[in-house]
């Protein structure tokens, strides 16, 4: 409004420097401004204040909305699925107030599995959560339905939920989004994922090459070998290293074959007479060949031991053993895992290499060998636990809990499946005794792994120490609250 702008300009400079004159006003003001201007009893400042008050009121009374045709917002598409029940929404509210990512994930999983949607009012809240917690993005996208996709178009930070196709995201997304798309595709269609990366490879810089290449470690297979071997000759060291790391995960790759061949020459079976020549005893002999292809050392195998008590030769052999799939031993000795483990266990000099084989079991995710190790090894190798069938994981976690508490908890929290009641009891008893290390946030973070049946047993987990007992009383109250929310979530979607 021009007249008001004139008032503001005059006000900024001050009446000593600028007056609002009659000519600045429109016809509507002629009479009233004449009365103000001609009033000899007031000074110029009050005349200005009067003029301001009049224009202020004129502006207030004449304020009209803008008329504009054709301004519209496309409506959100009709949803395919129904919104969840009010009870479920109330629980979601409670979970959001509790700030528990673990419970939120459970809630979203149930909502998604039941083909239900979150109430539109909470869609922005969930999109904001997913913006910060990338692991939630898929679930949030599903539970927010088409309303979420529609809403995401108005906020660039929510582009993950805007219905953009994986192909589009790969072409135009942020580095993080491209990496995520590639990782996802690598799970469902590893070949296409590799082809996508091959197509854009010449346009990527070294950093993005190295970052994207990491995704190929998911489902790395024989089809990747040829291209990875060319990538391993690129200039940039970080790209080379990344390619080599992935090749080392593929048993048929040249580098793994090279290690296998060297081990074939290094580890041999020796038959000896025993019991005064009445029986034959087979034992392992481990010795590196006199001449080793120097190329081996360019693939990440260190020549010199980094520990005083381990000789260089033992260190090299150990690295090689870590890098070949455990089933290589079966073809090498034409024997089953039990026999091979026993070969290694026979002598002190060979027993120490079992730890390296365990590393290879974990590296190549060989579940058969994992079970064999648990059955036939005289030593308990905790790192093998996640590769065991669920029932065995529970059994061995409970069996070896005393003495390996922290390690077993560290493995347990990585699990996707709920803990058994006995394992939970063991964990809670230990964590109750260590309230500083395992505080509320521990339970908040891993409540999805806690079976609801434990709710009646919290009292039994009470520590002996009086102070810890009172801390546990508060903690168990908190755990009860979290478990109650978990139970309510399950019920709300039944």
């Amino acid at each position: 409004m021009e007249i008001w702008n004139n008032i503001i300009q005059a006000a900024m400079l001050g009446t000593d420097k600028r007056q609002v004159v009659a000519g600045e006003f429109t016809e509507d003001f002629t009479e009233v401004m004449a009365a103000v201007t001609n009033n000899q009893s007031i000074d110029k400042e009050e005349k200005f204040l009067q003029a301001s008050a009049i224009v202020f009121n004129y502006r207030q009374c004449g304020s009209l909305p803008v008329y504009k045709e054709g301004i519209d917002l496309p409506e959100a598409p009709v949803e395919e699925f129904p919104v969840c029940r009010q009870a479920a929404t109330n629980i979601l509210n409670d979970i959001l107030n509790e700030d528990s990512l673990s419970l939120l994930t459970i809630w979203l999983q149930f909502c998604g599995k039941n083909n239900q949607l979150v109430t539109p009012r909470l869609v922005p809240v969930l999109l904001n959560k997913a913006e910060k917690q990338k692991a939630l993005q898929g679930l949030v996208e599903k539970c927010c339905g088409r309303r979420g996709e529609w809403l995401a178009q108005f906020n660039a930070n929510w582009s993950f939920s805007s219905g953009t196709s994986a192909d589009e995201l790969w072409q135009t997304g942020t580095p993080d989004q491209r990496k995520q798309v590639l990782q996802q595709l690598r799970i469902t269609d590893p070949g296409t994922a590799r082809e996508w990366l091959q197509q854009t490879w010449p346009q990527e810089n070294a950093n993005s090459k190295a970052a994207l290449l990491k995704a190929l470690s998911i489902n790395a297979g024989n089809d990747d070998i040829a291209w990875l071997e060319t990538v391993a000759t690129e200039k940039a060291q970080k790209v080379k290293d990344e390619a080599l790391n992935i090749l080392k995960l593929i048993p048929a790759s040249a580098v793994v074959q090279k290690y296998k061949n060297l081990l074939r020459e290094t580890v041999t079976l020796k038959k000896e007479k025993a019991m005064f020549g009445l029986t034959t005893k087979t034992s392992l002999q481990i010795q590196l060949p006199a001449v080793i292809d120097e190329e081996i050392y360019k693939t990440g195998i260190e020549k010199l031991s980094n520990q005083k008590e381990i000789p260089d030769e033992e260190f090299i052999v150990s690295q090689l053993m870590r890098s070949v799939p455990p089933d290589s031993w079966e073809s090498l000795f034409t024997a089953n895992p039990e026999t091979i483990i026993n070969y290694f266990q026979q002598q002190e000099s060979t027993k120490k290499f079992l730890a390296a084989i365990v590393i290879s079991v974990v590296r190549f995710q060989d579940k058969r060998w994992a079970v064999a190790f648990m059955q036939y090894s005289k030593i308990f190798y905790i790192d093998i636990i996640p590769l065991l069938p669920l029932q065995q994981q529970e059994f061995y976690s409970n069996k070896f809990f005393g003495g390996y508490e922290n390690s077993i908890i560290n493995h347990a929290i990585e699990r996707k499946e709920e803990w058994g009641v006995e394992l939970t009891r063991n964990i809670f008893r230990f964590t109750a005794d260590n309230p500083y290390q395992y505080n509320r946030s521990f339970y908040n973070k891993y409540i999805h792994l806690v079976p609801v049946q434990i709710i009646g047993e919290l009292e039994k987990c009470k520590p002996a120490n009086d102070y810890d007992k009172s801390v546990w009383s508060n903690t168990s109250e908190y755990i009860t609250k979290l478990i109650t929310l978990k139970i309510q979530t399950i019920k709300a979607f039944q």
Partner: protein
Amino acid sequence: MNLSEDQILALAPDEASKKAGRDLSGPSKWVSKGANEQALWGECQGSGSKPYQTQIDLAGMTFKCSCPSRKFPCKHGLGLLLFQAKQPVLFTEKEAPAWVAEWLKKKQEKTEKKPEGASQPVDEAAQFKRQQAREKGVADGIEELLRWMKDIVRNGILPIPEKGPAFFSAMAKRMIDAKAPGLAGMVKNLGNTDFFIEGWQSTFMDQLARIYLVISGFKNKDNISPSLKEDVRNWIGFTQNQDELKEKNGITDTWLVLGKQVTEDDNLATERNWLYGTQSGQYALVLQFSVPGQGTNFSLTPGMVLQAELVFFPSAEPMRAIIKRQLSTGNQARVTGLSSWLKVAESATNSNVRVPFTQERPYIIQQLKPVQYNSQWWLADRENRLVQLKSGYQNLYTLLSVSGGKALDMVVFGKENLYEPMGIWEGENYIVI
């Protein structure tokens, strides 16, 4: 009466109380509980041996608890309400225990009791003398304020941001001395102008013009209508005897609480409750003041519906009111708002004509939808008329998500061409956003 969880939590005095209330919203802590049409009660096991007795009068939404908390309502009151909202079937006990019945009885007796002291003789001469002195003090203060304002406009407002808060607080204090607390507040608000945003000059001049209109009204009190004179006196800070006000007849209606705004200044919390009479179509502003540890007379929460008699302060444009009697509470009411932005402009203009220094207020409008135009968000009515959303409106995405691009019946708060949504109707339910 069934308040939603959001409505219950809106009664909480602070965030900590909300959290603590939520923690008590399950059955584990309540050793006894019950509800009938009049009240809700429960005994909550705290850290002591004896459980706290918590009771809520549902007609007046008043709370009482035996806990030592200075917050109002306390976490037990909130927890009990939340508990009942979540699991009403667990409240099987209908017979109020003695401690509840006694409280309700006392409340009833207090309501029915006639105000005392009405027959006390009044020394009218002394009262007149006091009034004269007050008017003289205010008039002197106003002259000083006018001089101060003239100095501002003489020197220009450009250097104002550099003057700092003391420049305004000194004049506000002077207005307090002159027994014009309303003007003191207006001066304080002038000083609270956000000098960091573009266009602060216009906001500043709006408030300066508003102050000038009030003081001009006072100086010309003999030439203005009696009702506008009351408005001027209210703005200056002449208090209205609320007992006298309560003697007057009010409007009995079903009032919907449209919104609640709480501000805190010098440990004094001011609660601004915006109400709408569903039958009378009258808007009302009910102010409640509280200091820490002291609750308000009425617990109002947006979306709540109360059957009550409201008495309005005398005004050319009655808006501020007090609750004379609260008869019952509920939680659903359907209202029909204005049909377009033009109707809002017409209504706002009429209000401004009657009282030229009005401030932001709510309006109920039918079928508004958020739209984007010129890279800004607006609210469009069915006639393609747009009013801009206030910049920095925090709940834009909630509004968008709830609307899904469709028009909604809405309560908007603001003035002229800048408004923000206060609440919307989702089906039959009014919800605050």
